[in-house]
């Protein structure tokens, strides 16, 4: 396999997540054919690419939702490949899945409580609750409303907030802009930038390459289950190929 093209210089940072030669198959179909990527401490990293390129599968393998066929996944120096998703949470990983996955028949508050399921520190939980309500005041207004009655944008806010309630070091986000109005997407990405600036590392999958690349310090371009290109968000945004293929210019 050819080395992916590299654009720009990556700012050095302490390694957090390291994925090496990750392969995932669904029956006879190989969705990931040896993906290697890394996320540093405090970094925001984006995965962009067309439908079916393997972005969601990558996130799912990292968070333990699906078992990788082969490859090594290391989180903070510990090999975590093949662990189940509930075992990843205490290791500092939170995953806001594709399609938001809020519990429609539970209230906003109950959804958030479940995000802190493994935590026992009441004061810390209360502080984090205050923090996410600070990010998304609309959730506080709808605290006692069933999550199923929220708008799509509010559900996305809830999904992100719920993931934050476990106080993760690494936040995986799958298509946070999916199906949302542009203004709502703007709000969410502004908050994501804040969350990242406050020290949470982010691994973001996004169809909207422009948004993703302007948030991420480093990004990988996936094509049919392989990393085709990687680079700084800025360099990729400026690249002719990327502009043609993913930004519709």
């Amino acid at each position, binding site marked *: 396999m050819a080395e992916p093209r590299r654009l720009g210089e990556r700012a050095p940072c302490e390694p957090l997540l390291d994925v090496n030669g990750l392969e995932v198959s669904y029956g006879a179909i190989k969705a990931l054919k040896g993906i290697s990527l890394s996320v540093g401490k405090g970094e925001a990293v984006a995965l962009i690419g067309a439908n079916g390129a393997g972005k969601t599968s990558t996130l799912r393998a990292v*968070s*333990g*939702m699906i078992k990788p066929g082969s490859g090594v996944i290391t989180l903070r120096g510990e090999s975590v490949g093949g662990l*189940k*998703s*509930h075992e990843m*949470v*205490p290791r500092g990983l*939170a*995953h806001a*899945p594709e399609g938001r*996955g809020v*519990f*429609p*028949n*539970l209230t906003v508050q*109950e959804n958030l*409580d*479940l*995000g802190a*399921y*493994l935590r026992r520190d009441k004061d810390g939980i209360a502080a984090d609750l205050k923090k996410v309500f600070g990010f998304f005041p609309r959730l506080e207004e709808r605290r006692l409303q*069933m999550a*199923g*009655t*929220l*708008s*799509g944008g509010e*559900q996305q806010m809830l999904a992100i907030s*719920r*993931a934050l309630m*476990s106080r993760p070091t690494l936040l995986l986000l799958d298509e946070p802009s999916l199906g949302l109005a542009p203004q709502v997407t703007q709000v969410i990405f502004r908050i994501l930038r804040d969350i990242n600036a406050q020290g949470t590392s982010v691994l973001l999958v996004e169809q909207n390459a422009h948004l993703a690349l302007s948030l991420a310090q480093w990004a990988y371009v996936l094509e049919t289950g392989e990393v085709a290109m990687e680079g700084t968000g800025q360099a990729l945004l400026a690249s002719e190929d990327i502009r043609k293929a993913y930004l519709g210019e």
Partner: protein
Amino acid sequence: MYEFIQHVINGLAAGTIYALVALGYTMVYGVLKLINFAHGDVMMLGVYVGYAVAFLLGREHLGTISGALLVFAVSLTACAAFGFFIERFAYRPLRDKPRLTSLITAIGISFALSYGFQLDLAVSVGGHSITLLPGAASRRFPAIITPTEWAVLGDNDVIIWNWQVISFVIALTLMGGLQYLVFRTRFGKAMRAVSHDHRVAGLLGIPVDTIIAGTFMLGSALAAGAGILYAIKDKSIQPLMGVMVGLKAFVAAVIGGIGNLPGAVVGALLLGLCEEFIVGYTASSWRDAVAFGFLIVVLLVRPEGLFGRAQAEKV
């Protein structure tokens, strides 16, 4: 009038037993979306375990409180263990397969239990014959609670038996406890999350396998408790006894709105009363037809069951 009161009491007594079985049904359905058709047969298993314990205890312990408690405790524990076993080895491997697969597996387990128990199997150890499978003949369930009249109204017109009161109290306590467990505890919160979406629940750190196994154990233990109460009432037990009780409890759970705990209880009490009135005022051969007819009527009028609710959801 006395006759009517007597029917109400008998109906409620029968209904509480259905309720305990129905709670297990509805709880497992709520968490797994699986109709565990083996549930009634797990109940039958619990009855036979209770029978064995009572038999081993011997006559002198029958009717004592400690004896009765021991019968319940061993039977509940054995069924909880069996529930764990079938979930682990029969249902868990099929969890991500189409739902029909688990349903048919459940029917298979049901048959395996109800017909397996009709085999006669005994081994001889050191001159003692130990029965492993009881055989098809019905047996008399020992009176682990000595039946006494708890209250009498009029001139022996209405009799309330102690076992009726005991089963009513046990059933209500278990229902209350379950409601508390599901809505007020961490385990219950996790159960509800798993019931909505077990994959997302896992992403939040909830140990999905543990929660599902716990739900199965709890449901199976409830079935065992119901089975012992049923055996005390009916006195005669046989390997197919779980089939009809299981079906009736399933009907009760659907009438109440499957997945809904208070619904299962109300559905079961209604069913118990309904059957008792039919038997009391018409002919007992109508009983089952009316029970299932009741189900059809409820499904026609309110397909989600009495307490089920249509969900408001934006997509």
